[in-house]
């Protein structure tokens, strides 16, 4: 039995499967983003370029690894590893293969919120430790950005928990299975707010201010090269999987068996759809300035999130 446990943790719904999902979703994202812009996107590596993310990862690993002389060495080494490991650990409480996740306890939703906050802290440390002007500005901006989207996000994520009377993601998925309805049908406003806030969390276009390519080179990632950059990119892809898994689990019914289609397949299809939605959204906007973004979040997102909570309290979303 323990071997099966280890297999589950390491291979199937665990690390390896999720990493492959991460690379797959990066391919979906790049391909759709390219098609919206009238381009082909990755083409040559594997059928329709599906192995391009893996090729990039291997290329970056083989590249030279430059460590700036003035940087804070131990932080500079530790942060990339933590940045890749954090979404992995958070993904263990996401139901992937079955409505019941590998590890589920009452309150893992709060753990997810905490891990989002921790990720932004890691980004801040990454930028701060590389001691370069551009990454310093980038890391300060990412910290500012967290202040603005974290509260509406926290407010809205609580709504499905109130409706399902359970603070565990698996619990919410089972609640949706029990009432045979998607969370989104009950709380559409919540889904909209979560999608917008997740755009800010993933630093996708209207909110990719921390790594604004035309202003501060690559923001907090400027000084990282070679293996560290590979880890950061994988971390970003895993974060994409984590975010889409969260949206699917809370609002789109999560990993439920649909008569013949196994739960895992349903999960992959739904998350791919959410990733496609993110990718389509980031093709439509220009980038906000940091002060406009914070003002926008506090003036618009927060009241809407609060309204959603009030609606749920009054029993509309239950």
């Amino acid at each position, binding site marked *: 039995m323990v071997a099966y446990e280890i297999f589950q943790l390491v291979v199937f719904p665990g690390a390896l499967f999720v990493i492959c999902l991460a690379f797959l979703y990066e391919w979906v994202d790049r391909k759709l983003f390219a*098609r919206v*812009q009238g*381009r082909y996107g990755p083409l040559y590596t594997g059928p329709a370029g599906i192995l391009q993310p893996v090729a990039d990862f291997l290329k970056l690993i083989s590249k030279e690894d430059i460590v700036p002389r003035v940087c804070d060495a131990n932080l500079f080494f530790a942060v990339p590893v933590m940045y890749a490991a954090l979404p992995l650990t958070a993904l263990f409480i996401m139901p992937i293969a079955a409505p019941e996740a590998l590890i589920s306890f009452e309150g893992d939703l709060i753990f997810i919120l905490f891990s989002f906050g921790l990720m932004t802290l890691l980004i801040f440390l990454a930028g701060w430790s590389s001691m370069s002007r551009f990454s310093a500005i980038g890391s300060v901006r990412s910290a500012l950005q967290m202040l603005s989207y974290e509260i509406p996000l926290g407010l809205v994520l609580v709504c499905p928990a109130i409706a399902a009377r359970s603070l565990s993601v698996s619990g919410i998925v089972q609640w949706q299975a029990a009432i045979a309805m998607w969370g989104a049908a009950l709380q559409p406003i919540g889904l909209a707010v979560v999608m917008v806030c997740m755009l800010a969390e993933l630093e996708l276009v209207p909110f990719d201010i921390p790594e604004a390519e035309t202003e501060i080179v690559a923001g907090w990632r400027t000084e990282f090269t070679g293996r560290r950059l590979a880890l950061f990119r994988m971390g970003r892809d895993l974060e994409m999987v984590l975010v889409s898994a969260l949206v699917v689990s809370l609002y789109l019914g999560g990993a439920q068996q649909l008569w013949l289609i196994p739960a895992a397949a349903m999960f992959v299809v739904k998350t791919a759809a959410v990733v496609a939605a993110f990718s389509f959204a980031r093709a439509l906007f220009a980038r906000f300035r940091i002060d406009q973004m914070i003002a926008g979040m506090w003036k618009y997102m927060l009241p809407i999130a609060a309204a959603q909570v009030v609606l749920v309290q009054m029993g509309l979303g239950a």
Partner: protein
Amino acid sequence: MSIVGEALRQLRRKPCTVRYPAEKVPVPPRFRGMPAWEMSKCILCVLCQNACPPGAIRLIGKGPEAEIEYLMDRCIFCEECAEVCPKRAIVMSAHFELAGFDRSKMVFRFRKERQPEPPKPSAQTANG
């Protein structure tokens, strides 16, 4: 949100980019590619050498052994030589993929047909 319509339409359409090494975009006629000398028509009048702004054409030697040395890496493809040539001996070809690693390979010699030798199977050759 004003670009959603265009974005959706674009999704259905075929991308407009060309997969370059596989598909090549045809070049229109009268395109100013790399010039080529037809030495049978050339009367070695050196008009092209004086007309060339960057000085990429040079006549070497005299009489039957004379050669036109053309430096492709100095050429700016402005077609002044083809325009000034009285015998229409210079033609701008459609070659534009002229990048290379070795500058010495970018020097072309155009030589007149040698009468005494038996005529070679192909017409005059431009080596390099």
